[in-house]
């Protein structure tokens, strides 16, 4: 047994190629970003050591603060929507839905598999007001809600909300399937016993389901958090960050600074900041797990 599973040559063959690739393409660039963040300009052109100047600049930069605020709002709305609605749907599938269970679960998962840019362009047309009303506005105007017809993604007040709604629409099916699996693992007897003892739906959820689902809720929150911190693809496809800076995320700002304006050093500071935000956020969410 030991001879076979301790085969050094096989271990090396199994691990080393992946290890090299992963180190060069994932880990090394992260360290490299930290190093770049101490410089100013663009490598090869004007490239000067700047120490921590870039970091000092960061919090005085109005555009950065704006992107941070947009990104944080987006994380809060989308995380709550994806995980909350996902959980709600899973409870609905488990306790109320009797007919067509499989078909409905399949349909709800549908949007998860669509390419982001395609979804973005679809929603551009749904939200459109000019030159013709898109799907949403044409329905609103037809059912007598002309007042609500508005440029959903063309004005700062609704653009972020419209974007969040799209991303929640896409992903809630994903979370509902995960939660549904977790709910199936909870033995039916426990739930029956609680019902016989006169437990109502709210109490059943609060004192039995929620504690049992806690680890999986936390996993989903981390998943959703790491997904929303990166906010880029869907915003680019739907609004291109506009109008103005209303939906411009940290990643988009970083992309502009480093690739459009060529300020690689400063862009790297933002890149490092996104990484730290990702680690800090997941750390905070995970702490809720260790309390008990």
């Amino acid at each position, binding site marked *: *047994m*030991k001879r*076979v*599973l*301790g*085969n050094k040559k*096989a271990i090396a063959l*199994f*691990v080393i190629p*992946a*290890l090299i*690739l*992963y180190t060069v*393409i*994932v*880990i090394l*660039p992260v360290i*490299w*970003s930290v190093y*770049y963040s101490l410089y100013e300009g663009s490598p090869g052109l004007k490239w000067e050591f700047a120490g921590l100047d870039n970091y000092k600049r960061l919090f005085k930069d109005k555009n950065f603060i704006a992107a941070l605020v947009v990104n944080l709002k987006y994380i809060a709305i989308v995380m709550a929507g994806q995980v909350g609605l996902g959980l709600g749907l899973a409870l609905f599938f488990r306790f109320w*839905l009797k007919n*067509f269970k499989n078909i409905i679960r*399949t*349909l709800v*998962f*549908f*949007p*998860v*598999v*669509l*390419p*982001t*840019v*395609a979804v973005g362009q*679809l*929603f551009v*047309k749904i939200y459109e007001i000019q030159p*013709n009303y898109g*799907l949403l506005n044409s*329905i609103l*105007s037809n059912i007598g809600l002309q007042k609500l017809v508005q440029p959903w993604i063309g004005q700062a007040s609704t653009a972020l909300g419209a974007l969040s709604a799209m991303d929640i*629409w896409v992903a809630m099916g994903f979370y509902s399937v*995960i939660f*549904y*699996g977790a709910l199936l*693992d909870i033995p039916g007897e426990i739930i029956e016993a609680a019902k016989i003892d006169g437990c109502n739906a709210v109490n059943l959820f609060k004192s039995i389901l929620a504690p049992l689902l806690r680890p*999986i809720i936390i*996993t989903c929150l981390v998943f959703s958090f*790491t997904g929303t*911190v990166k906010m*880029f*693809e869907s915003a*680019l*496809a739907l609004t291109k960050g506009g109008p103005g800076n209303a939906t411009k995320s940290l*990643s988009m700002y970083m*992309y502009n600074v*480093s690739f459009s304006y060529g300020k690689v050093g400063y862009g790297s500071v933002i890149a*490092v900041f996104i*990484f730290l935000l990702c680690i800090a956020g*997941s750390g905070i969410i995970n702490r809720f797990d260790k309390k008990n």
Partner: protein
Amino acid sequence: MKRDKIKLKSILINLFTTVLVIVEVYPIFWMVTASLKQPAEFVNKPAYALNDGFYIKNYIDAWTRGNMATFFKNSLINTLAALIFIVFFSVTVGFAVTKMDWKYKDKVAKYFGIGIMVPIATALIPLFQIYNKLNLINTRTSLILAYIAFGLSLSIYLITGFLRSLPDEILEAAVVDGCGIYKLMWNVVVPLMKNAIVTVLVLQFFFKWNDLLFSMTFINDTKLKTIQTGLLYFQDEFGSKNWGAIFASVSMSVIPMLILYMILNKAVIEGMTAGAVKG
């Protein structure tokens, strides 16, 4: 009284189910009908109206003038090449860090775990510099390598989670029967891991097919663009005037995914509910 209550409950459930299905499916259905409309229909009729006929020219426009055929081919090549390596590496590494016997296996598993936390944006600038020096900008290789490397962490995590629950006795029995390590991998471990492998394949397929950040950074040659960057380019090319062609191109990028999902949906949903993701 009680009967009325039950009846009301079932009406509410049916109502909610209907709304849910409409919300999830109607936008996609609408897109397909819109892709078959003639230009005049967009102007003269409300957006929710059904298509008058089947105006296939939109699809022909998208396929030929819009280069959709090329974008499709590129996405397919990049994604499949990356998937083969991701599955291969995640099975071998996953096996080595759970079942094999060596000193640093826990450390290596943790090291691969870090990658789950790394946002693509953080690695993008240096990676661009590295590729630039190696003359890999504007090549398929650049995308495939990045896809593989960034797909490893989550896949290995899922595979190790699965392997930890696999009883050692099965392996022992095979070894006693005289199985060498490679035969053990191929004939015993891989067949046992079919579900976990399908989960990894499906998840990574969606991630890679949906990549935008890498492909818009490393590729600007139209011949090498993928579906995602292609769709963005398509929008610029056709502007907001040719609605039909845009809907057709979007539908074309969506339909293969839906077909694939229909075929695999049982495996996807089962793999995900079975707990591969729960870790």
